[in-house]
């Protein structure tokens, strides 16, 4: 099937060859894996805050009175497209 495949997809073999030669320059292997703690400070990408805890909360949930109808955040930074000016 491969001859027919290559005839139908002439780009593919060439693409794989180029991709492999490029990738070989910086092969991904176990030897390259950083130590987890070596790459970023806490609070960044590799240290997501815990979600489970045994603590309760003193913050009150005010139910219906707390319903906020309008988003007011950094969405003001996003403009254009179908979005109405904010």
């Amino acid at each position, binding site marked *: 099937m491969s001859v027919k495949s290559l005839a139908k997809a002439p780009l593919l073999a060439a693409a794989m060859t180029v991709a492999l030669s490029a990738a070989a320059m910086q092969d991904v292997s176990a030897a390259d894996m950083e*130590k*987890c*703690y070596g790459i970023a*400070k*806490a*609070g960044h990408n*590799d*240290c*997501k*805050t*815990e*979600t*489970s*805890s*045994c*603590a*309760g*909360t*003193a913050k*009150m949930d005010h139910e219906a009175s707390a319903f906020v109808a309008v988003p007011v955040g950094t969405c003001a930074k996003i403009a254009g497209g179908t979005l109405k000016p904010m």
Partner: protein
Amino acid sequence: MDQMAPTAQSLASPIPSSPLPNRAGIGLKAQHYQEILDTQPNIGWLEVHSENYMCTGGPTLKWLTALRERYPVSLHGVGMSLGSAGPLDQAHIKRLVDLDRRIEPGWVSEHLSWSIADGVYLNDLIALPYTAESLDVFSAHVREMQDALNRQVLIENPSSYLRYEHSVISEPEFLLNVVSQSGCGVLLDVNNVYVSAHNHGFDPVAYLDQIPAHLIGEIHMAGHSQTVIDGRTIRIDDHGSPICGEVWALYEHLIKRTGPKPTLIEWDTNIPALDVLLGEAAKADAIMTLCGQRETHRACIG
């Protein structure tokens, strides 16, 4: 309810040689992973909430594994819901067994409470009615958990905000019955005793004094906050501030009787700099040194 009255003989055998050092430890937070690995502070051990590490891969497990190479670790569960009337979640048990094998913790612990109703996880540690039915349910679930893990677990007294009309015995009595029916040990949370004592008007010293020293495998210490409902102050166990003076005083009282025990500093909201946690841990260590030797009782401050 006569069958629920524990006797000295019916209580479980003493906790064997402590699997955690008789020193202060701290709750491990993601914010402090890097600093603890870099500086390797002189603390006895670390504790994590088991559910945060029940993933199959990724950085959080790598951090914990790296830290486990340097410190003893305790796995503190919040999600088993041992007090639920329904069956335990078998998939959750399996995940805990896997984590236990991976981390080889000093202790595995859970709470004297429930969190799951009709399959929904409420993310809240809710007190049980202290009845014969609850005791049967809870003790059977502790036995099931211990059998799955093939180890003794510790059960922690909860902070509570309400009590039930149909409870027939006190919380410490219930806890000691669970111990005698399941063979578990006790994780005594001094702050929880204080919070519940304030909320329900009982004597926290009498509660602590009811728990035999040989059953206590670990102690928890934390800060709490106060909220006013209808003119009445309710204490909430939010682990978001320094341990208050009254709770330190209760801790001294406890340690004078029990001697040094693995003592955790818990801080889960408004998490401070690592140094603040280490300062609280040093305070607990100092109390254990001063008050924890039976022959040096008189040297204890306060």
